[in-house]
């Protein structure tokens, strides 16, 4: 076996030195009745070229030549080449969690830089080293708000990503933490502020909204914060499209930001690994879940970095920890750090502007087709938009697919009231040609069979 660095002669010599007659001696402690007496029924050992052939075939079967207007929490942005060059350095790729600070300064300094960038972008004081993804980050942020406020209810906007809400429900169920859904304004697609005001009480630990929300609409964060804070609740803002922070006003009134950083240079990879992260105000940092890198000095006064405030974490506090999280998404956070340093202060804004322009063009082009109407036009949005069609989405999406285009995703899957409505996304990667072609296909009447 090519990964095993031993010859049979070496194995025999080692066994002899241990004083074992055969390898079976070392497994003798396992009762014989449980020892597997046969080969595992898995595919035979493959050569490297066979492995590559197998996965290439799988990749081809996935049909790579389709353009796509899909977004909804997973976004296709350009990934600068240096991201993969750098994260594939063995010193990053094959290193463990940096508990041994003296020999992991590389990872620790990079995490410190990541935390700084996320704090800068979100307008928060501090950010952690990462969470699994945006959905679990939102759930953990809610539990954090419960610890901070000592209250046990949360109001969650229906415009938060439906799968994030499902994950929050799973986490909340056994915490004695009822989640109250807050409806949206059917005109603007924003959180209904009156409904929110009614939903928040003196028992509410947190108000959780997403911005830009699931419909791509930017929420009125100052107004939402005012309602939450007036009743003593924390405001949690979750962000699924991180690139929006280049141009959209950061949610500075929030107490906690729980975001998904996939847009910062992370491949779609059929939904993971992505990169969640939680940022917050300084006064709440000791209630934050997850790892934190902090600056300190060594014996000679040199600057160095360590994992810090570990008394929040499971390996120290066990059942009293702020979370059970251990492994996070470190290498993916490094991808995001490299992405953000490639674009930098000016680039992240320019990139966000390109997204804004593409989506604006796509929304106006597609909604000018007869029988197609754009919903939620009363409020600003980033790069996603909702279209309502006279024709059933199943019909036109088949026509689009014949033209190698995947259209927007049907919203009735999560919002029964939004019949024939679809959510579309256009990032900087979307060519004008594709938008024009999609409009043409939408406009063409289905051919009667």
């Amino acid at each position, binding site marked *: 076996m090519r*990964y095993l660095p031993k010859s049979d002669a070496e194995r025999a010599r080692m066994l002899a*030195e241990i004083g074992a007659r055969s390898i079976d001696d070392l497994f*003798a402690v*396992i009762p014989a009745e*449980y*020892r*597997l007496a046969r080969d*595992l*029924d*898995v*595919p035979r*050992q493959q050569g490297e070229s066979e*492995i590559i052939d197998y*996965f290439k075939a799988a990749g081809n079967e*996935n*049909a790579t030549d389709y353009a*796509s207007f899909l977004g909804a*929490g997973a976004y*296709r942005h350009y990934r600068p080449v240096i991201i993969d*060059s*750098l994260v594939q350095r063995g010193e*990053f*790729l094959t*290193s463990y969690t940096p508990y*041994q600070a003296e020999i992991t*300064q590389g990872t620790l300094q990079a995490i*410190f830089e990541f935390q700084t960038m996320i704090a*800068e*972008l979100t307008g928060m004081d501090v*950010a952690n080293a990462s969470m699994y993804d945006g*959905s679990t980050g939102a759930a953990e942020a809610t539990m954090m708000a419960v610890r901070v406020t000592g209250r046990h209810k949360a109001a969650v906007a229906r415009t938060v990503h439906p*799968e994030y809400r499902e994950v929050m429900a799973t986490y909340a169920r056994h915490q004695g933490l009822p989640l109250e859904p807050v409806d949206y304004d059917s005109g603007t697609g924003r959180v209904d502020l009156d409904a929110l005001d009614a939903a928040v009480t003196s028992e509410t630990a947190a108000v959780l909204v997403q911005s830009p929300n699931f419909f791509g609409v930017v929420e009125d964060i100052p107004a939402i914060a005012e309602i939450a804070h007036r009743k003593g609740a924390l405001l949690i803002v979750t962000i699924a499209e991180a690139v929006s922070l280049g141009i*959209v*006003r950061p949610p500075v009134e929030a107490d906690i930001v729980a975001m998904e950083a996939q847009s910062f240079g992370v*491949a*779609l990879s*059929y*939904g993971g690994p992505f990169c969640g992260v939680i940022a917050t105000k300084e006064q709440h940092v000791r209630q934050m879940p997850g790892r*934190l890198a902090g600056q*300190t000095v060594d014996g000679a006064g040199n600057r160095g970095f360590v994992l*810090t*405030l570990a008394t929040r974490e*499971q*390996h*120290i*506090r066990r059942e009293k920890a702020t*979370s*059970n999280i*251990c492994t996070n998404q470190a*290498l993916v956070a490094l991808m995001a750090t490299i992405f953000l*340093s*490639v674009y*930098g*202060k000016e*680039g992240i804004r320019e990139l966000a*502007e*390109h997204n804004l*322009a593409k989506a604006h*063009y796509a929304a106006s082009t597609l909604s000018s087709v007869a029988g197609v109407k754009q919903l939620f036009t009363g409020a600003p949005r980033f790069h996603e938009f909702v279209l309502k069609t006279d024709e059933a989405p199943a019909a036109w999406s088949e026509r689009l697919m014949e033209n190698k285009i995947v259209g927007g995703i049907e919203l009735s899957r999560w919002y029964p009231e939004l019949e024939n409505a679809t959510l579309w996304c256009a990032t900087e990667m979307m*060519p004008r040609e594709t938008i024009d072609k999609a409009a043409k296909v939408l406009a063409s009447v289905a051919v009667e069979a």
Partner: protein
Amino acid sequence: MSDNPGPRTLGKVRPHQTQNEALLFEKSSPGKRAYKLPPLDVPPVNALELLQDQCRAQHAELPELSEIELIRHFTRLSTWNYAIDLGMYPLGSCTMKYNPRVNEFVSRIEGLAEAHPYRPESLAQGILEVIDLLQKCLIEITGMDTITLQPAAGAHGEFTGILLVRAWHESQGNPRHKILIPDSAHGTNPATAAICGYQVENLKSNADGGIDLEALARQVTDDTAALMLTNPSTLGVFENEIHKIADILHAKGALLYMDGANMNALVGKVRPGEFGVDVMHLNLHKTFSTPHGGGGPGSGPVACKKFLEPFLPTPVLVRGNEGLREQGNKKTGTKELRDSGAGELHWDYNRPHSVGRVRAFYGNTGMFIRALAYILANGPDGLRQTTEDAVLNANYIRKKLEDLYELPYKTPSMHEVVFSDKRQAAKGVKTGDIAKRLIDYGFHPYTVSFPLIVHGALMIEPTESESVEELDLFIDAMRSIAREVEETPELVKTAPHSTRVSRLDEVQAARKPVLRWKKQGLGTGD
């Protein structure tokens, strides 16, 4: 560090460079760029007009640097890291094995890496086939009936597994209140039980460091939901009375949860599904060679018995029109790479008894690809040999060090061995000091002070990835340190001496946390 008296010629890796590398923000200067966007092919927009009061007023203070500076920055940082690629990483419980490069290559194949999670299932059959084959392989390896790949890491898998336990008890009319956890368990176990709404009840280990059957029988009541057991234990010891443990639990209607952190000792040799485990998680980043990446991403699949299947997180992967019941009864192993002619794969969202979702989308798919590549590279013979070599390596180290380091439990070791610092502590040298001194010899420290049942533990897991030469170097280093403890204990207590920074002030870091760079105030830091 130049005036540091520490030895400079011991071990095999040269000391780190003394170069410094400032933070990106400190190196930044306005006007530098590392990007160039293509020209816009649609009309430009006025952001302020479109976004109005929601437009960002001030740019975020991100660094401004050129591409070569970024390459050098991150490359220099990387050289300050230890890594499996540099040498042995004997971290007990963490299974730091070789991360094959073909895994990285295939995970980046365009059709897999660029697949959107909401693409129509008809356009995603390739990735679904990969997921299906991995599921079958893991079910076969664990001897369980069914599996979910959704959890993002080991602790997330524990959370999912305990939710399954809870949902099943609820379906029986009573969720119960307690989870039993041995005192040797990972910290994630009690933390998980707590977030699932359970009270944690500690189970004391017996004189061999294993489960005390009498204590277990006393403590299991009809209010016990499950026992969370790591097998082999964190001492690297197989619970040879595992069937009795399972029987005691099952007699009271409680379930047996297995923390699969130590599955590297079992693959191809013994299957947890056959010794009474009801539900367990795997760590693809331990046993199945996906990289640790400095702390993640991981992946924590949960395998379980048939009776827990209705409660699995949504969605569940199914083939063709077959309902889940048929799916579960199907033979799960496979000799074939392709399940030809069996119908299309799709996600089943209609799961009325499900515990719900534990993560958006389907899990850390990129890790599934890597883990499957590892299984294919090994085959049944390679997987078994891997386990045997892992156990052989641990026993070799035990044999070669047991005269100098105290072995608190004499029970046979599987894939890891746990010593204590008892003899060295008599000289004032603790396990943490010995660990730091190992760095000077070119090795990553072992796991320090865990499991908690061993005072001053040195927990060593070599994995199968080490050659005899590397093991002998490690053994020489440990023996040399044991000598230093006798002769020059200060040398050990002040280690490491060969790194870019010496021991860092963790107290200061925690007392006055500096968790980010700020534009003013910090100066250059050096």
